């Protein structure tokens, strides 16, 4: 067993290499989804493709980090990887998550022998398909979602493979960005190569070869210890995505989670069959979400490597909404199914065992808004994939975060200044939603409202959102968060209407290729988080702060929290005490 201090140092060095690659990517990529949104991850794999370390960037990509590299290496054959090669892959049926996310893998050689692999997963904002931004809510087959690449060489021996590049560039709507973004990924990987080489020079091949399995064992032991502290048993719950863009019916994810000593079995066998629309996820998406839900509650400080996942088994039968079969579409699985599973695991299942570590439901949708067209200023084609901040659920001791991207994504919003500089929209509102957060002893975080007007002759827009019919739930007596609204006001109209009312889309929140014109305005109200605990137990001082901050209105302070404010803004203590007693008795 190597020295534990050395193990800790080595682990940190591996993670630092991943983080340095990530910073290089952020600084050199062309698209805002990378520069601003940080929708990517970097990883180091051992010679078998097992995860050694990853940068703490996008947890939604955990499943790919664990499975995709291994499967790609298996698919291609490890001996096919030569020095200077980079393989690209985005096939959800061969270990990918959804097609916009591309895995790039390059081998790491030292002293003439392959020692492992470096990888990156990046969400490329435009990869062709039936809608700009490659989120085709009306797709019914994978072929409509963009260009699907099985593992193929993008770089061979340090030189671009022109055949692969030309196919990609010809099929993506914004080839300049494809060129810039993929080269940013390749450049970042080459930085990782140099740093890993220096690390091997520092410690030597033998010491690292001996240490990596010990790092895996250490993480596994950590997780098994934490799992052992939980009560054995099977815990079940369900949640749903409210429609698939075609049928006005919910699709249920049903989970039975068994704790048996030091292992966890997560079984989704009772989930609904796969949907016709794009809300399905492949196995790695379900795995990512499951791991994220578990790691939010158990072993959150544990080093993330292949060993940490050994005690967890996941059963997700093929042909269900949690494991789509070819050629079912699945672009929405990574963005909509993931938050649903994550909350199901932590907020409905593990909260039955350790409620103090869990949270109420978050807004639960990435609020995907995609658009593209010819920019009136440049004359060039543009496309953008935008995700939006939502409210997170209240936790045992703290309120939910306001206006944060879904918890599994760890991404950032695109600032208005960047948004309006790059794309022909003008914002008239971008603000938090007062009274949106689910009432509770700790309050749900607030979603946002964005209103923006088209500043071009035409913009083609698509959306893929959820939680417009089913509210983000509260926990332990907490109230629900406000639901999503995605509306449009045609130029000259006075009212905002749903896209179904204005354009006849089947679903008001899942549609593709709607043509907006100059002067049309879009209103997005993202959902807020659920509350935790009875609202009348929220300290009066916190309610007052909420009112002063504009997060809660005077009327809702009274109705939800039982805090009665006088005309001078002061608390009517007698009336508050009486009202809170009534609310607690259920008569308020």
């Amino acid at each position, binding site marked *: 067993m190597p020295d534990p201090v050395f193990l800790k140092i080595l682990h940190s060095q591996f993670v630092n290499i991943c983080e340095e690659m990530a910073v290089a990517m952020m600084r050199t990529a062309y698209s805002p989804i990378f520069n601003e949104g940080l929708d990517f991850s970097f990883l180091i794999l051992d010679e078998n493709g097992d995860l050694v370390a990853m940068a703490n960037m996008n947890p939604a990509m955990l499943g790919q980090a664990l499975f995709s590299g291994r499967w790609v290496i298996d698919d291609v054959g490890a001996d096919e990887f030569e020095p200077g090669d980079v393989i690209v892959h985005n096939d959800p049926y061969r270990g990918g998550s959804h097609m916009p996310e591309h895995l790039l893998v390059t081998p790491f050689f030292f002293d003439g022998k392959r020692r492992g692999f470096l990888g990156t997963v990046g969400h490329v904002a435009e990869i062709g398909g039936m809608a700009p931004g490659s989120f085709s809510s009306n797709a019914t087959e994978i072929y409509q979602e963009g260009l699907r690449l099985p593992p193929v060489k993008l770089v061979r021996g340090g030189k671009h493979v022109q055949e692969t590049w030309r196919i990609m560039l010809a099929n993506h709507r914004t080839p300049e960005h494809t060129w810039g973004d993929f080269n940013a990924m390749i450049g970042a990987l080459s930085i990782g190569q140099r740093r890993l080489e220096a690390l091997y020079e520092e410690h030597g091949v033998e010491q690292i070869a001996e240490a990596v399995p010990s790092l895996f064992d250490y993480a596994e032991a950590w997780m098994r210890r934490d799992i052992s502290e939980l009560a054995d048993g099977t815990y079940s719950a369900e949640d749903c995505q409210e429609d698939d863009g075609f049928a006005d019916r919910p699709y249920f994810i049903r989970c039975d989670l068994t704790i048996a000593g030091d292992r966890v079995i997560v079984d989704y066998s009772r989930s609904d069959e796969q949907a016709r629309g794009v809300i399905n996820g492949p*196995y790695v998406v379900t795995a990512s979400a499951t791991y994220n839900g578990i790691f939010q509650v158990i072993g959150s400080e544990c080093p993330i490597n292949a060993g940490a996942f050994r005690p967890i088994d996941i059963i997700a039968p093929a042909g269900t909404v949690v494991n789509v079969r070819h050629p079912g579409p699945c672009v929405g699985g990574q963005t909509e199914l993931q938050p649903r599973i994550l909350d199901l695991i932590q907020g409905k299942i593990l909260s039955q065992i350790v409620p103090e570590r869990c949270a109420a439901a978050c807004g639960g949708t990435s609020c995907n808004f995609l658009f593209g067209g010819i920019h009136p200023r440049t004359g060039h084609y543009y496309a953008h994939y935008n995700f939006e901040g939502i409210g997170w659920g209240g936790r045992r001791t703290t309120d939910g975060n306001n206006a944060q991207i879904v918890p599994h994504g760890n991404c950032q919003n695109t600032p208005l200044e960047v948004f309006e500089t790059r794309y022909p929209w003008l914002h008239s509102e971008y603000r938090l939603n007062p009274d949106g957060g689910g009432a509770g002893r700790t309050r749900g975080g607030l979603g946002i409202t964005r209103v923006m007007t088209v500043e071009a002759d035409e913009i083609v827009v698509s959306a893929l959102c959820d939680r417009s019919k089913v509210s983000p739930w509260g926990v332990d007596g907490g109230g629900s968060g406000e639901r999503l609204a995605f509306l449009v006001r045609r130029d000259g109209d006075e009212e905002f209407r749903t896209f179904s009312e204005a354009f006849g889309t089947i679903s008001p929140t899942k549609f593709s290729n709607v043509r907006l014109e100059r002067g049309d305005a879009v209103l997005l109200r993202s959902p807020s988080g659920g509350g935790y605990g009875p609202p009348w137990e929220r300290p009066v001082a916190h309610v007052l702060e909420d009112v002063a901050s504009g997060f809660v209105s005077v009327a809702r302070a009274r109705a939800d929290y039982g805090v009665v404010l006088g005309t001078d803004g002061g608390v009517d203590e007698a009336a508050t005490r009486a009202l809170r007693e009534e609310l607690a008795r259920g008569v308020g």
Partner: protein
Amino acid sequence: MAWVEREEPWYRIDVQYCEVTGQLLPRRYWEFEHEGRVLKARDPHCEELFREYVLARRPETERAQT
């Protein structure tokens, strides 16, 4: 029960799934028998999971469909 090497021509692009967990089956997969039926799994751990968990937990009717 045994390891099986999947020998498929390069132009076949369809995939197969582990019949226990739903994971993608690698080129080399684990095959085992249960009540006269041959099941394809990712590795021996999946067979263990099948015998310890799936058979123990699921009702008979559901097991038959597994």
